[in-house]
């Protein structure tokens, strides 16, 4: 027998953020009139200690069995309020949030009356859903205290060492013959001008003999199955195939350097048109000499505008991988949409290296925007003091490179400040190119079920709040696989990913979201469509019925929407729980009958 819903509604002023626009006392009085609402109050800050205490107190005092908080977005505050419910012995899934800040007071600041009416609607919708909420139990699994790190670059080695030093066993695989990734191939690093070997060698020295690290070179991933705490991974390497069982995975497979297509700024046509990476290498080998002038061009193949939506519309029916392959192909010639973040400092670093070796060499940097953040500003000043010349370009008017009779190169550029065209005879033209996603990233992302963003890099679970998590529990990302980073940022993300993975392995147990698919076996005819639709392989037909393995289900609900027998619904996002909100909105009087 279901108990009668007794809902407590807590409406937040959020200081003046909500209360300055929405008439909060009015909304509170309105909430009290709604069916099933046993108690309603308003607080200055519901998320404050006092506000949370008030919720717990009201649950006890008014015998509440559902809680609605009308405040900000559930994307930031739902976990907090759920935890509060739990502390008051109320199942956290008997909580619902009404977003009256981001979706109401903040976007209707000049329409207080209408905003108040809208807030009442939003509260009524949340109350309606709350009536139909059911307690849920989050699935719990054991976590094996072994990790797999993919990629032995700076980020991967840092992550591996961090976990190994905490006592966890780590498999570290690298597709190349040598560890060290891109960094090992560099000469000097900004802003200290230290040799890259000073960073890479100690890492390699620490990794190789470590008793908890098994380093496997020329080894790649063949297949991954399983779930957080218990992944089965098939590897392939020089000694043949191998199966390992791990609890967590860190992807640190890095990125590649963009190679300009032949002819772009005469690259590939004249030998003296090179990339910054090639310049770095030539400085290391002392092949640059004491030239009269070096001209550098920034943002070559980068910051080429957002991906045009029409570009995507050209292939509306393709799936992610197919689409991205097309984007990658299209991008190959045009360049990439994002700022690669490291090229400005890289160019300044090489300019300083040249200038310090050969002060009479004129170094000219042609740029659109210069991004030197934090302490790198000093690095930029140092280049200015060495008389490196920075010349601003305007968008859409790229410099032109030609060869003049004496065999020298010549750069024709438009100086945005003076408004004149300027000509620079040059011994070397150096192109600053971005870091781009690896070609095999798509295969890897597919195997691990990590989404790829429109920039082609792997996507973090949340750009701000969960920068090294992926949306696959137990799989983390470090280094440039999620976007361009310099060495120190790669080390930070390596440490961070290791810390996130260690939490799981240290606890030995993990709970996952209870938003999973449920099959009504009476209705199910075992057709297997859900099995084919699910991107995670969660449903499986056994003895003629679909069985959902909860721990694999991510809760997207695609199977529920497509099931021919309508036998599948989602926990916490059931058909009735979704539609009751719409019904409460459009037919307010229907709320009386909900849950009856």
């Amino acid at each position, binding site marked *: 027998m279901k108990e009668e819903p007794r809902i407590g509604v807590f409406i937040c002023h959020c200081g003046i953020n909500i209360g300055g626009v929405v008439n909060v006392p009015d909304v509170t009085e309105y909430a009290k009139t709604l069916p099933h609402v046993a108690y309603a109050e308003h607080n200055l800050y519901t998320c404050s200690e006092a506000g949370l205490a008030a919720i717990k107190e009201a649950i006890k005092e008014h015998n509440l069995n559902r809680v609605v908080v009308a405040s900000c*977005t*559930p*994307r930031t505050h739902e976990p907090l309020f759920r935890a509060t419910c739990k502390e008051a012995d109320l199942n956290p899934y008997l909580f619902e949030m009404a*977003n009256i800040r*981001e*979706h*109401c007071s*903040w*976007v*209707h*600041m*000049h*329409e207080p009356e*209408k*905003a108040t*009416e*809208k807030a009442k609607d*939003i509260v009524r919708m949340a109350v309606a859903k709350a009536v139909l909420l059911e307690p849920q139990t989050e699935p719990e699994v054991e976590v094996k205290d072994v990790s797999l790190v993919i990629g032995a670059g700076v980020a991967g080695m840092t992550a591996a060492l961090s976990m190994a030093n905490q006592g966890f066993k780590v498999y570290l695989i690298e597709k190349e013959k040598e560890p060290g990734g891109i960094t090992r191939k560099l000469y000097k690093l900004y802003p200290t001008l230290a040799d890259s070997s000073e960073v890479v060698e100690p890492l390699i020295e620490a990794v190789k003999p470590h008793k908890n690290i098994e380093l496997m070179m020329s080894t790649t991933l063949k297949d991954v199955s399983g779930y957080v705490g218990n992944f089965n991974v098939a590897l392939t390497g020089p000694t043949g195939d191998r199966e390992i069982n791990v609890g967590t995975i860190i992807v640190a497979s890095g990125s590649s350097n963009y190679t300009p297509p032949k002819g772009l700024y005469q690259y590939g046509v004249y030998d003296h048109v090179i990339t910054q990476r090639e310049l770095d290498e030539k400085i290391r080998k002392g092949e640059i000499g004491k030239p009269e002038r070096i001209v550098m061009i920034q943002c070559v193949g980068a910051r080429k505008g957002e991906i045009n*939506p029409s570009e*995507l519309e050209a292939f*509306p*029916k*393709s*799936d*992610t991988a197919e*689409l*991205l392959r097309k*984007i990658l192909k299209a991008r190959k010639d045009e360049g990439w949409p994002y700022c690669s973040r490291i090229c400005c400092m890289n160019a300044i670093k090489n300019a300083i290296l040249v200038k310090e070796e050969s002060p009479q060499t004129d170094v000219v940097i042609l740029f659109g925007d210069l991004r030197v953040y934090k302490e790198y500003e000093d690095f930029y000043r140092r280049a200015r003091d060495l008389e490196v010349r920075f010349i601003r370009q305007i968008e859409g008017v790229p410099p032109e490179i030609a060869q003049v009779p004496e065999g020298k190169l010549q750069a024709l550029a438009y100086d945005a400040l003076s408004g004149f065209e300027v000509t620079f005879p040059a011994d070397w033209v150096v192109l600053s190119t971005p870091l781009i996603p690896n070609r095999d990233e798509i295969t890897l992302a597919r195997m691990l*079920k990590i*989404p*790829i*963003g*429109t920039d082609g890099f792997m*996507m973090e679970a949340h*750009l701000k709040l969960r920068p090294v998590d992926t*949306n696959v529990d137990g799989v983390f990302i470090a280094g440039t696989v999620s976007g361009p980073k310099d060495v120190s940022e790669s080390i930070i993300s390596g440490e961070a990913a290791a810390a996130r993975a260690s939490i799981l392995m240290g606890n030995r147990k993990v709970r996952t979201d209870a*938003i999973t698919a449920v099959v009504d076996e009476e209705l199910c005819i075992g057709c297997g469509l859900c099995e084919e*639709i699910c*991107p995670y392989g969660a449903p499986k037909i056994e003895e003629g019925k679909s069985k959902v393995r909860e721990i694999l289900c*991510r*809760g*997207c*609900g*695609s199977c*529920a*929407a*497509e099931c021919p027998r309508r036998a599948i619904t*989602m926990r916490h*996002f059931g*058909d009735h729980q*979704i*539609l009751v*909100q*719409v*019904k409460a*909105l*459009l*037919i*307010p*009087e229907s709320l009386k009958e909900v849950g009856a």
Partner: protein
Amino acid sequence: MAKDVFEEEKKAGKEFEPLIVAYCCNWCSYAGADLAGTSRFEYPTNIRIVRIMCTGRMDPTFVLETLRMGADGVLIAGCHPGDCHYQKGNYMMEKRFDYIKKAVNSIGIEPERVRLEWVSASEGGKWAALIREMTEQIRQLGPSPFRLMRRKTNATIDAFKSQRLRWIVGRSQVKVEIEEEKYRQVADSIMQEEIERHMITGALKEKGPLTVEEISQLTGLQPSRIVQHIIALRRSGIVNEAGMKNRQYLYKLI
């Protein structure tokens, strides 16, 4: 068919405030709408958001049920192609949407009332612009025929429960003093009056005190007609004044 019946109401309701239901996926579009808030991008108040985890969750019946319940428009907003948190939920939604759109059209509802759009977590500005544009578009289309039909049906049921109309209908079963033809005419106009009055009282019951203009927007009735009814309803002690709003009288149920 429904379209023609409500032609006049729609015209009268041109200035009406549409109600649009938006199904937003948790990861992109709901976050995009959050960002519009954080960035203080203002947009009309006509939208109500229902959060789902992924547009892949959208059963075609959700859209149709939402229309049947009387939403003037339905927006489904998800991640851009390639950005789905669940890899391909948005592609599944896109395929499904072709069928939904055709079905909506075949019911006789303008297909523009139903839209599928991609809004990422970083596109707060796009979200605000989209809501502005869609609100205006639906305003031009007029109120949902379902909503008008439900209001009118409810009012008609209430009218047939009222003493006045029951008396007229009942009375026609026995001998009346005037010609049948004339009686019919009077009975018809009383029925029409009662339906309209119950539309007015229904609107007042649902939304609280309202001005004549607001009642007109909700019911599609001409303001002059509403004023006539209000006078009658006041006389019968059903409706009374309830202060002023924008220099217009507010009316409420007693």
